[in-house]
């Protein structure tokens, strides 16, 4: 990771609200690095997020930004993308934001398969609200609310995504900036719904899943894994033990929502009001009057 400026950098005096040592810093670098390397124009990119520590990421990039409600980044991203196909839309979200409050949108965004990249900062905890369990918190971790330890089965975003035939499903680790950049680049280049769930240590509230822990409990997916093999992918995603890093699943055969829905190339903001002819024709065609 080098520190040279890239075109998505904010002014150097920007106050970043993340804790020192947090995985978010490296992930931010990776996201900006990927965007820069792809040569994307900041003006044609919209970063969308919800609320949480992760969701602050777009605040620290020089981009168009829709920092909406907790859990609601994906619907907003969908509205943005459909209104202007020229825009590159990237969502950054936390594990609570996306898989907790936003779980329903996660499911249905996958079904839609519009062109969006979803980067989830998966720190296995609610950071901003001070350490409660998130959907991905591992069993038995104690928190101020889960005083006896977490008893729910962790949410498995990769398995669910593959079960719904999400066309691009990857997992990265913020500690490996190179791989993270590479996966994010692929995800953004991919036309369709692309999920990159990124393990991101929260050094304040998650004392279980530390930098060290992630290092020890992850492995790179073997080179011979065929990401187009859905069953193999889901096997990787559901296996117990260490967590696989890399590209789990890819399906290039799913059609894009925008294409199926016939969304035109012209942004909606450039659309004129209906002309008088069409408008009158519509009036004439109102069922009770057209016979």
């Amino acid at each position: 990771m080098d520190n040279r400026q890239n075109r998505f950098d904010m002014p150097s005096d920007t106050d970043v609200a993340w804790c020192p040592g947090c995985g978010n810093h490296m992930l931010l670098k990776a996201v900006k690095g990927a965007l820069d390397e792809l040569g994307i124009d900041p003006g044609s990119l919209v970063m969308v997020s919800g609320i949480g520590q992760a969701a602050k990421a777009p605040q620290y990039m020089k981009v168009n930004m829709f920092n909406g409600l907790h859990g609601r980044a994906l619907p907003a991203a969908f509205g943005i993308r459909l209104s202007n196909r020229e825009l590159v839309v990237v969502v950054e979200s936390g594990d609570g934001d996306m898989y907790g409050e936003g779980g329903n949108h996660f499911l249905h965004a996958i079904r839609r398969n519009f062109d969006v990249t979803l980067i989830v900062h998966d720190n296995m905890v609610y950071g901003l609200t001070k350490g409660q369990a998130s959907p991905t918190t591992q069993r038995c971790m104690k928190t101020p609310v889960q005083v006896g330890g977490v008893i729910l089965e962790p949410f498995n975003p990769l398995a669910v995504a593959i079960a719904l035939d999400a066309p691009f499903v990857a997992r990265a680790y913020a500690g490996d900036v190179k791989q993270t950049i590479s996966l994010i680049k692929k995800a953004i280049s991919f036309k369709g719904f692309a999920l990159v769930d990124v393990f991101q240590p929260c050094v304040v509230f998650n004392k279980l899943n530390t930098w060290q822990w992630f290092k020890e409990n992850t492995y790179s997916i073997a080179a011979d894994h065929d990401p187009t093999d859905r069953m193999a992918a889901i096997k990787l995603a559901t296996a117990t033990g260490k967590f696989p890093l890399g590209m789990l699943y890819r399906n290039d055969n799913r059609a894009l929502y925008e294409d199926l829905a016939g969304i035109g190339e012209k942004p909606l903001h450039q659309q004129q009001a209906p002309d008088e002819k069409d408008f009158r024709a519509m009036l004439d065609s109102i069922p009770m009057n057209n016979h």
Partner: protein
Amino acid sequence: MRPYPDDISLVIEGAAGQGVQTITAALLPILNNSGYNVFSCMEYMSRIRGGRNSTEIRITGKIRRAFTAHIDVLFALSPHAFEHLQNRIDEKTLIFAEKEQFGNGWNERCIDTPIAKFAIQAGGPVYSNTVAAGAVLGILGIPLEPLNIFLREQFAIKGDEAVENNIKAATLGYDFGLLTPPALKSKIPLPSTNDGESHLLMDGNTALGIGAIAAGCNFICSYPMSPGTGLLSFLAERSGTFGIVVDQAEDEIAAINAGLGASYAGARAVVTTSGGGFDLMQEGMSLAGMIETPIVVHIGQRPGPATGLPTRTEQGDLDLALHAGHGDFARAIFAPGTLEETIATMQQAFDLAQRFQIPVIVLTDQYLLDAVSTIDVLDIKRLPVASTIVRTDEKYKRYAFTDDGLSPRGVPGYGDGLVRVDSDEHDEQGLITESFDMRSRMMEKRLKRLQPLAEEAFPPTVIGRHDGAEIMIVCWGSTRGVLEEALDILDSKRLAGIHFSQVYPLNPSILAMLRNRRIIVIENNARGQFADLLTHETGLGISRRILKATGEPFSVEEVVDALQEEAHG
């Protein structure tokens, strides 16, 4: 007892699935084209087949747009007719029904109508509704041919046999109807002088859709919910022609957030729902207020709380609309009472939303949305659709401070600037701030628009003669028609009506209209939500509230009764 003689109310009763809607769709245009004034409204249960449903068709001398309780002619298709409608029929009601299934209520005013027999003669029980349609024309003495044309068009896709059977059914019914005792026929009003051509027939849903299209609406994402779904279907059907992006959301939360995303990116977005769905959009409303992003929300009201009565009517969501979303921010709320107003307020809603960068609500209800009446094409006016979007430059700040609190609105990808919106309190650039000073200035900025919004508010419409009236009867939304008719019938100089098609903010001119008069508010809810609002905004006291929250609209008779003493006392 009918308070006036120059019109008739015809009610067709039938279970869901018996085709009452098809009869209505056939008869209304025929009546309209024949030069009659027509108005129609319907009431139905929350089920797909069976149940107790009815449609009222009024054929009137003057143009009327209100529900009357009394039934002059009842056409009964189901065995539930008498039980269901007995309060609305009396000894003068002419009843066409099959004696066998009509039950207890049968007496000499009933005409045994062999609907099922004719249907079977025509080809099978499914033709019952066509028999009824034919019979109605016969009763009214209107030529059959237009109905045959309708049937040919309607059933063409089902093949020749279906068409022929339908025509046969219509003819059998027609011939029967012609034999109706002449005593009734004399009640039919003369055709009005309006020629049917320039008058379009439509329901409130259609008007709402026309308004949205006229306003250049090009994005709708919504989740089905009666009676809000009509707008979604209307726009879906026309999405190709008008380039409207239509998406059915997974839930209402997604719907409004998608709408806001779209609007942020430059779409003219609308969301439609009913009270329960709107509950789920509250946080989105608050977001719209915070990020100053236009959105139009249509709420088709129905009786609550909770699921309530899904297919019935009420005006019970005004309070909710007024206070939806936590925190303080500006909004506007419309509540049209006629087709014309529906088309106009919908356009105004989009226009205000764009210009003031706020959420705007259009409140209708099941009664208004389903009621069919006529509108002169010339009264369908289009507001110019001005784009309020600016091309940004490099120094662009989404929330730049200005004198009126309105910052030029850019959209991403259009110009050299960046467009940043944030649900947290933010600075001019749209970035998170925790400065108390910035917070204060931003709150002030967001609320400043309330004043001009009030000044631009649609003034209410006076019904009758305002000068000299001691008592003002106030109504809003769908109750306009019934008050108009009641005041017309009561014909009292002491009373005048005022109808609000915009209910928030209120135009400052209303104070002068209402001051020093007794105020009576009539509304279709349990506690008088608009009455409260009126007092809140004007400080004026309300002397009486005429309320109804049964799930039914007010009938003309009820309102006449309720105002009788005031009118003549």
